């Protein structure tokens, strides 16, 4: 009994996303899939799940061939998928999201709410997921949203479960819990396909590792007998430097100063509470913290996307507390937003258009009322090369890029501007190791050129590797400041959970 893909080929206009890929997953087996951004991992899984129809190839599940092109058929065949970008309706409750498509009804179409709740609670208890069926999805943290996705899959009794970059949005403790869940699924006799860019995770949890490159399967590895650098080399095709090398910072004038800031979230709760911090030219300050402790609101307030209730924000001595995002931009503040699809990109625009999205009205892209697309295209082509964005043409819509490549478009645009201050939220979310290496090197380069850089990341390793100073944020406040060269990850990890740390 197994899930078997043979000779899958999927072409998009100009792109061969999957080239004769074969793969099999047995019962009770965890197969990890690695590959650079744009290698074709998501495409392959979408084929499996019926969202794309392949040009060639076949899939057999437990002896039965799969009908392509219909998620309904894939679900019926025993497949479940937790997508890279979650498939949850934000304004629905957990229970409503879970039962969508197989609603328990009383026969004439009215939903049996009690039964719906019971279904959620049953699975939540069995796998220790601790999810409240009545909570609104938009109100719960990403980690819990992911568990809702898992419940959705389990309630359909999926035998083979695909996870597309499940850990990209999770915090370290959540990752551990997630692994426990995955191991539980394995013991149940379910097969798991697990896509990730984090090599340590692969070695920790997988039974077998498959590597894709440029749409082709380039080999397998045994997690017990491999190393991270070996895996990285298999993916990228060259040795990758996994640590950031940088000289000690030489901080100069203060660029960003935040003074006693209070910010409300969408529901009117004070999620940033009396927070002060400063960032100097020539240094990288990292904010570590479990997601949902006010980082999002803090960044939105600094970049002018959310009003501050109290307190002040200054950039280079100018009071910018009530500036609009565009004014901030003019002042020389770049921003890599945390949710790329929500606020970083216009998905229907081309890569070139997105590259100039925030400066189209400025020299050299604009001449009077006319855009100079020649200049814009040249600039976009240069950035695509430098940042290794896997795209055939810069006039393709950005929505046709893989997740990691979309991220690289934003990072390229924002870091290329040569500004005073860069605020980067989750700058390498979903980006492969080779490109992380490059992005990190670029961030250090900008620092050395005298920019002030604020990095917000729930990826503790990233904050530790990049920052010259680490601030830990918990429940809206800065609860500690650490020197990453002399502090252990454990110590900061504890501070992130609100215990320990050198509280002021």
């Amino acid at each position, binding site marked *: 009994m197994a899930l078997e893909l043979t000779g899958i080929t999927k072409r998009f206009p100009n792109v061969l996303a999957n080239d004769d890929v074969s793969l099999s997953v047995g019962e009770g087996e965890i197969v990890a899939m690695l590959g650079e951004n744009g290698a074709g991992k998501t495409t392959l899984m979408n084929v499996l799940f019926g969202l794309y129809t392949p040009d060639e190839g076949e899939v057999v599940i437990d002896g039965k061939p799969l009908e392509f092109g219909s998620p*309904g058929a894939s679900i019926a065949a025993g497949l479940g998928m937790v997508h890279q970008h979650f498939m*949850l309706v934000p304004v629905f409750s957990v229970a409503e999201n879970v039962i*969508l498509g197989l609603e328990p009804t009383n026969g004439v179409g009215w939903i049996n709410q009690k039964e719906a709740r019971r279904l959620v609670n049953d699975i939540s208890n069995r796998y220790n997921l601790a999810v409240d069926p009545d909570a609104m999805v938009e109100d719960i943290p990403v980690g819990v949203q992911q568990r809702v996705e898992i419940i959705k899959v389990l309630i359909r009794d999926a035998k083979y479960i695909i996870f597309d970059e499940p850990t990209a949005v999770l915090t370290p403790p959540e990752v551990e819990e997630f692994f426990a869940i995955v191991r539980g699924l394995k013991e149940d006799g379910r097969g798991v396909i697990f896509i990730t860019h984090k090599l340590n995770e692969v070695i920790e949890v997988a039974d077998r590792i498959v590597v894709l490159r440029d749409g082709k399967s380039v080999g397998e590895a045994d997690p017990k007998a491999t190393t991270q650098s070996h895996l990285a080399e298999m993916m990228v095709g060259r040795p990758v430097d996994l640590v950031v090398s940088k000289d000690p910072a030489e901080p100069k004038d203060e660029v960003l100063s935040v003074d006693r800031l209070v910010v409300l979230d969408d529901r009117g709760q004070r999620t940033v509470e009396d927070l002060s911090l400063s960032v100097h030219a020539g240094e990288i300050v990292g904010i570590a913290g479990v997601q949902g402790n006010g980082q999002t609101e803090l960044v939105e307030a600094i970049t002018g996307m959310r009003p501050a*209730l109290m307190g002040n924000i200054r950039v280079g001595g100018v009071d910018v507390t009530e500036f609009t995002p565009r004014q901030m931009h003019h002042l020389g503040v770049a921003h890599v937003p945390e949710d790329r699809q929500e606020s970083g990109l216009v998905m229907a625009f081309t890569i070139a258009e997105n590259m100039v999205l925030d400066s189209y009205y400025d020299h050299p892209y604009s001449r009077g009322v006319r855009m100079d697309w020649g200049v814009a295209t040249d600039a976009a082509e240069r950035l695509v090369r430098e940042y290794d964005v896997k795209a055939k043409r810069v006039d393709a819509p950005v929505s046709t890029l893989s997740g990691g490549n979309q991220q690289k478009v934003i990072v390229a645009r924002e870091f290329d501007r040569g500004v005073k201050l860069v605020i980067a939220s989750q700058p390498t979310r979903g980006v492969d190791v080779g490109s992380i290496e490059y992005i990190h090197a670029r961030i250090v380069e900008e620092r050395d050129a005298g920019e002030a850089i604020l990095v917000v990341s729930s990826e503790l390793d990233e904050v530790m590797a990049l920052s010259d100073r680490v601030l830990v944020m918990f429940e809206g406040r800065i609860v500690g400041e650490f020197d990453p060269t002399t502090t252990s990850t454990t110590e900061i990890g504890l501070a992130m959970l609100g215990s320990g740390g050198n509280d002021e």
Partner: protein
Amino acid sequence: MTATANPNDMIHVRATPEEKRSTIIGAVLIALGAYIFWQFGLGVEPGLQATFNLSLQTDTVQGLAWVVDPRQFSMIIGVIVAGLGGWRLTRRALQYTNLSLAISFLLLVMAFLAWAAAGSQFSLVGMLRSTVVLSVVVVFGALTGLMCERVGVVNIGIEGQLLAGAFAAVVLSSAFGTAAGVLGGVAVGALLGWLLAWLSIRFQVDQIIAGVVINFLALGLTSLMSARILSEIQTLNAPERIPAIRIPFLADIPVLGAMFFDHTYFVYGMFLLVFGIHYGLFYSRWGLRSRSVGEHPKAADTAGINVYWVRYRNVILGGMIAGFGGAFLGLAQVARFEENMTGGIGFIGLAAMIFGRWLPIGALGAGLVFGLSRAVQQKVAILNTGIPSEFLFMVPYIVTIIVVAGVVGRTRPPAADGIPYIKD
């Protein structure tokens, strides 16, 4: 420690949008209260009485009336409205801003009526009954819009669907009888619903443009046929008026009976539809699937739901509701067809949908506000107050504009509203 805890701190607190809104509305209400006090209160000669009749000639209980002194009455109302405004200025209990606004609106209407009826009589119950009748087409229009937008399709063509429904109903009813008329109206509505769905789903035509096409198509075709056919063969424009059905016992209740329980089945149908769709949206499989398609079609797709089918179905159902509303207009409210007889009411319905926050019960409330403004306008036109009738005629539309343009505060349409769903 928070910044506010320290009295020496010079940090000033910025207002949230809700607080700003509360302040603005507070100021407006105080001004309104003062206006009511002077214009409708002090503006009336002392000693005059206003009589509000509470019985219709058809009522079981006769001769009910409510006599007030408009001077006192309006002065008290002015004080209450200004008081509500003062309460808003304190920025406390922000959740009551809309309620304060609604109450003030009703009080304003009362004071205005007392002023207008000073020294004479006025059928209050007649006006309330008209309110219900005049809101029916608006509510049907709003329900149509809501059925479509809840699944992510914007329907600008409600106006055309109502008009075509009315035309078909009138002609078929004149030729083959009432039942054929009603069914024909519904069928034509369904056809235009299908057209909208087909254009915007199959060809991904911009939904606004598809809606505009439907409006012009309906207006053009019905006007042409009305001028060419109905003016020639007048028997085709002479449907039998659909009679009211008195609900036993309930219709005998004073005031409420005349308002709600002595109407054609269209009106009862409207109430059933409002509550049925409301509860259906939130508690049935149909509603859950519809909303998921309007909020996040890809999530619905991955849950095995056929997004296109759900959109087709709801948009066609919406068209049928508009056709039914058109039949009411043509067979019960007017009982003949006139060119462009909808006169923009479909757009008012669209506004009522937004005002009602994409909720059927909200749409009913919004429809009633419109109906009330229309009813007041019609009754006051008779009272000879010196207000130009053109101005009175504008009032319902002005009320709608004010309400939609933000007095209502922030509303959230379905997330995928107006966005075509493209696979692969």
